[in-house]
C-alpha cells in the first residue's frame, strides 16, 4: 500500500559521519557484495569488463573539496536511501510495490510487484533508487532488512553490511526515533542534520558534519617533559648505542 503508515514503531536508519569517512568505498563494495543474494538481489552488472560497464548500486560515495574561510578539506559523501518518514517515492508508486514498513520504518521495493515505471526514482531528490536493467525493477537500500533480523548470523553481524564494513567507524545503525539509543545520542552530541529538509520528506538518516579544523593553536601538542639524554657510560649502553647507529644506516 502506498499510503504511508501514520507512525512507525521504530525509526531505523543510518548515521553517517562526514568527519571520519575517508572515501574508501568499503561500504559501497560490501553493500554490493551482500546484495548478490538475498532480498531483491542480485544487483546486476552489465558488461563489467568491457568498454561501458553499468550496473545497479545501492550506496555510492562522492568526494568533494570544500573550502571555507580558513582552509580546504576533502569531504567524502556517502549517499543512499534515507528511509524518510513521509517520502513521495512511496506515494507516487502506482502498484504499491514501494512501501514503508510500519514496524521499523524501512522503505522497501517489492520486487515481485514493481513494474519498473521509474516514477519513484523521479520523486527521490537523493537519487537513492536505481532501475536494474536486467531485473526490470527498482532497487534501493534495504537497510539490510535480510541481515538485521537474521538469526542465522552472529549477533554482531546483524547490522547493515555497510556499517559492518566501515573501517573508520563512520557509519552507525540504530533507532533514530528512540532518544536514548546510541545513534540518537551521537546525533545530539555532534549536531547531526537532515538532508534537503525543504522537501518535507522528513529523512530519518542523519549526517554528522565535519568537525572544525584544528588551527596552529589547537594543533600544538603538549610539550613533553625533558628526559635525560646522556648515557651512563656502561658497556650495555655503549653497545646499544653502537647497534642503534649501525641499524640506522
Amino acid at each position, binding site marked *: 500500500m502506498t*499510503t504511508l503508515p501514520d507512525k512507525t514503531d521504530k525509526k531505523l536508519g543510518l548515521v553517517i559521519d562526514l568527519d571520519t569517512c575517508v572515501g574508501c568505498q568499503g561500504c559501497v563494495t560490501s553493500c554490493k557484495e551482500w546484495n548478490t543474494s538475498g532480498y531483491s538481489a542480485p544487483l546486476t552488472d552489465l558488461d563489467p569488463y568491457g568498454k561501458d560497464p553499468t550496473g545497479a548500486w545501492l550506496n555510492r560515495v562522492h568526494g568533494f573539496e570544500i573550502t571555507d574561510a580558513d582552509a580546504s578539506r576533502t569531504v567524502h559523501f556517502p*549517499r543512499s536511501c534515507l528511509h524518510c518518514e513521509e517520502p513521495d517515492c512511496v506515494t507516487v508508486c502506482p502498484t504499491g510495490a514501494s512501501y514503508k514498513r510500519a514496524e521499523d520504518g524501512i522503505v522497501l521495493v517489492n520486487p515481485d510487484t514493481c513494474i519498473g515505471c521509474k516514477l519513484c*526514482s523521479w520523486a*527521490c*531528490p537523493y537519487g537513492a533508487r536505481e532501475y536494474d536493467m536486467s531485473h*526490470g525493477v527498482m532497487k534501493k537500500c534495504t537497510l539490510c532488512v535480510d541481515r538485521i533480523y537474521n538469526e542465522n548470523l552472529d549477533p554482531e553481524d546483524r547490522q547493515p553490511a555497510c556499517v559492518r564494513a566501515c573501517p573508520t567507524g563512520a557509519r552507525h545503525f540504530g533507532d533514530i526515533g528512540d532518544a536514548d539509543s546510541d545513534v540518537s545520542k551521537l546525533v545530539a552530541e555532534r549536531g547531526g542534520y*537532515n538532508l534537503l529538509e*525543504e522537501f518535507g520528506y522528513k529523512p530519518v538518516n542523519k549526517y554528522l558534519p565535519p568537525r572544525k579544523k584544528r588551527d596552529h593553536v589547537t594543533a600544538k601538542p603538549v610539550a613533553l617533559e625533558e628526559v635525560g639524554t646522556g648515557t651512563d657510560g656502561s658497556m650495555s649502553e655503549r653497545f646499544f648505542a653502537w647497534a642503534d647507529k649501525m641499524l640506522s644506516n
Partner: protein
Amino acid sequence: MHPAYSVIIFTTISGAGYGLLTLAALGMAFGLLPVSPSFMIVLLGISIALVTIGLFSSMTHLGHPERAWRAVSQWRSSWLSREGLFALLTYIPTGLLGLSYIFEIGVELRPILGLAAAILAMITVYCTGMIYASLKTIRAWYQPLTTPIYVVLSLLSGALLLLCLLAVGGEHSGLLVKFAIILCALSLLLKLAYWKKIDEAPYDYTVQQALGFPDAIKIAQVEPAHTQANFVMREMGYKVARSNSAKLRKLMVMLGFVVPFLCLAGVILMPVQMVPLMVILLLSHSVGLMVERWLFFAEAEHVVNLYY
C-alpha cells in the same frame, strides 16, 4: 530529464485521442455536431484507437509490462495510478456510446454517455498532467501551469484532428474553427508564461543545500561516485543546451501554434480547399506537439543533479 520516446508518443497520441473524444462527444451531446451516426462511429473508433495505441506505447517503457494491471490499485495516493484508473473508466461510456451507434439502440442515452465520456477523458488528461506537476524534485514541472497546459494541448490537438476528419468527411463546423483558434492563442500564451517562469526563476536549491553545508562554503567535486554513468545520471542528467532549446522553442511555436492559427484564420476569411489545408495543419501541429513534449522533458532539471 531524459526524454523517453515511448512517453512522448503516449502523451501526445493519447492526448489527441482524449481531446478528440471530448470534443466529439460534447458536440454530439449538445447538438453542435450534426454528423451522421456512421461518422460518429468513425470518430469514436479513431479516438479509442489513438488512446489505446498511446497506452500500449507507454507500457513499453516499463520493466515489467505484464504486471501493469497492478498500476490502478494505488489511486488513493498516486496520480499515475489515478490516470490508469480513469483511462480504463473512460472506455466504458465510450464503448457504450459506440455500441449505441452501431446497434442503433438507446438514442436517448447518447447525450449522457457523451457527457460522461468527455468528463472522464478530461479527468484522465488532468491526472496525466498532475503526475508531472506533483514532483517536488523537478522545479520546472512543480508549478501551477503544467497541468493546464497538458489539458489545453490535448483539447487543441483533438480539435485540429476533429476539423481534419470533418473536412475529409465533407463536413465543416465554423464553431469548432473559432474554438480551435482560441485554443491556439491560449496554448501559446500558457507556453510562453511557462517558459518565462522556468527561465527567470533562480534555481531553488544549491549544491551546499544538497550536502547540508552553509552557503558560504565553496564546493567542488573531486571524485565522482563512479567512473561510468549510472541509471540516475542517464535518467535525470539529460539537459538540452540553451542554444538548442531556443531554436527548438521557436520551431515548436511555429509548427505547433502559428501554422495552425494561420490556416484556421485563412479558413474563416476565405473559401479554401479544406482537406489539404487541414492535413497540412494537422501534420504541422503534430510535429510541433512532439517537439513541445520533448522540450518539456529536456528542459526539466532534477535536483539530484546537484550531487554530480
